[in-house]
């Protein structure tokens, strides 16, 4: 049994008076202890929705309309709001995109760290302070004792994100969900932050769900990869294998569109059109209007995620390059 097991998760938002539109359409996800999983998709693919849904943080009028989220054998959706608070931020921590939005601007970093600890542990102020400073040092924040008393605005973007990581690690969580943790940062800072997250996850055997639009980042950082398109998982499997030989046409399109993968002076491979909105999804496979391999059947029925060796692909005509070769 995996540490985290998500089955058939659906999130619905009301549309008009009666109807509902699905912002997540039946997503399965497994995470073993210490495993690093990447979730990749374009904006609107539902990847952040997945992160929020796992922590039962979908705000009204949205709701989780189907599925289960088993963490250590307990369904998080059955817990009362008091009980889930003991899991959220304690056993499962989250790192968001913009550190300026996550940190409270009117409290010192120290206050916010001690507050987090005291919300989850019976711990005195002095001890909490000591532990917090230790964590700040662990994420390589220079002169962590003085930084403990700083306000967020006194730090640069990179340092702020380090503070957020230190807070996420305070309670020794089993899982960290990182939603675009480096998108707001510069490349050199991104490399610093990602190598820090990787090192800490490895050292403490923390599971990582890394949500990003950047295939380069997941290729560097994760072992397993899920590619999402139109609120669904279209391909799932070992990161290396998907990057090298994508089976789903959408995965291949995304990879081929990267300048890293193209020849200089030649036009980039582009996917025509753009992602459909959740309110006007086409029938059948949601990707078929953009797909080069689509045939008549793709318009009628949505393909299910089917296993092909260690990978699962949701496509009637997957590329399966190894089989053809």
């Amino acid at each position, binding site marked *: 049994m995996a540490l985290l097991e998500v089955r058939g998760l659906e999130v619905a938002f009301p549309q008009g008076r009666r109807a509902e539109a699905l912002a997540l359409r039946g997503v399965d996800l497994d995470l073993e202890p210490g495993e690093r999983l990447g979730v990749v998709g374009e904006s609107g693919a539902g990847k952040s929705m997945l992160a929020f849904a796992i922590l039962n943080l979908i705000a009204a009028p949205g709701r989780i309309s189907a599925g289960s989220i088993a963490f250590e054998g307990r369904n998080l959706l059955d817990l009362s709001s008091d009980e889930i608070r003991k899991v959220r931020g304690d056993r499962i921590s989250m790192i968001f995109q913009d550190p300026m939005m996550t940190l409270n601007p009117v409290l010192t970093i120290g206050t916010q760290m001690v507050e987090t600890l005291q919300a989850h542990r019976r711990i005195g102020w002095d001890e909490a302070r000591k532990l917090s400073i230790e964590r700040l040092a662990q994420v390589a924040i220079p002169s962590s004792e003085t930084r403990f008393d700083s306000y967020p605005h006194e730090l640069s973007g990179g340092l702020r994100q380090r503070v957020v990581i230190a807070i996420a690690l305070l309670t020794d969580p089993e899982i960290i969900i990182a939603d675009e943790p480096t998108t707001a940062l510069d490349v050199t800072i991104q*490399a610093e932050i990602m190598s820090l997250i990787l090192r800490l996850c490895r050292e403490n055997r923390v599971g990582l769900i890394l949500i990003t639009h950047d295939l380069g980042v997941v290729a560097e950082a994760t072992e397993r990869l899920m590619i999402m398109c139109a609120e669904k998982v279209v391909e799932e499997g070992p990161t290396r294998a998907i990057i090298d030989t994508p089976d789903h046409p959408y995965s291949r399109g995304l990879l081929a569109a990267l300048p890293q993968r193209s020849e200089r002076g030649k036009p980039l491979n582009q996917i025509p059109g753009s992602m459909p909105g959740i309110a006007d999804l086409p029938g059948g496979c949601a990707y078929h209007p953009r797909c080069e391999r689509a045939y008549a059947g793709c318009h009628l029925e949505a393909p299910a995620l089917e296993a092909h060796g260690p990978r699962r692909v949701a496509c009637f005509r997957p590329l399966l390059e190894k089989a053809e070769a």
Partner: protein
Amino acid sequence: MTVLVETRGLEMRFALPTHFLSREKPVLHALNGVDVAIHKGEAFCIVGESGCGKTTLGRAIMGLLAPSAGEIDFDGTRIDKLSEHARRPFRARMQMVFQNPYASLNPRRTVFDTLAEPLHHLRPELSGAELRKMVEVVMLDVGADPKWGRRMPHEFSGGQRQRIAIARALVTDPEFVVADEPISALDVSIQAQILNLMTKTREERGLTYLFITHDLSVVEHFGDRAAVMYLGQIVELANVEVLFDGPRHPYTRLLLEAIPKLDGGSFDQEHQPGELPNPVKPPPGCAFAPRCPLANERCHRERPNLSVTGATQVACFAVEEGRD
């Protein structure tokens, strides 16, 4: 090769707000003596991280900011001191595409009005029919349906909006386009569409591009020459192939190493925390010295200038002295 745009010793200083009784008058140095010569027909890229001055440089060349010192030439004429009236003919010849198509299009104007506006302003002699014709031609050029003209920006996706923004830049038939991070607000699959469109318009219209970006992998694909900026200075300038195959400046190397690669290997290295120094109180010597593994005492004291080293121009004492 003819030079189309040239800057000499361009400096930009911004006085920061202070308390009215304060004796300190802090000044932010956004550009510290930038010399670039952009050749006709090339795609010249400016790369750097936030706060390095790349956007300021683009805006200064466009005349959206008045430089504190230095000169800017366009096609042999000095343009930075021109009056608004004398500058007008140049405005039609140089245009700009901005980063965020959600902010750069007026939400209360139809697409046609947005596209016709530069022509109304810069070519008032055109008749209504000519104007409509020109707008239609440019829309077809960028892959926009002329029927879009009656619609409002909110009806379009990010990629479509950026096409409209590019059409607006091209409608006056410019020779020179400054594109400031034109694809960073877009999704990966849309980025490729827009980059291809820019390449196509460049070939068809013989455009010269100043492409401002933080993303080195785009530079490798799109650019002919590239300048790497750090804290208001150019630290390395070379042909794109040279820059990628043999980066000389330690900062260029750091940037290239930091790109997440599909083959992996970049995040496994230990990265020490490094930050851009405070541009209000820049270090006395080389701006990169506090982060530089090769820095010695001279680097902390003196500021290196861009000088030709082999096939590239580098501003680094370590390279000059052969310590790299």
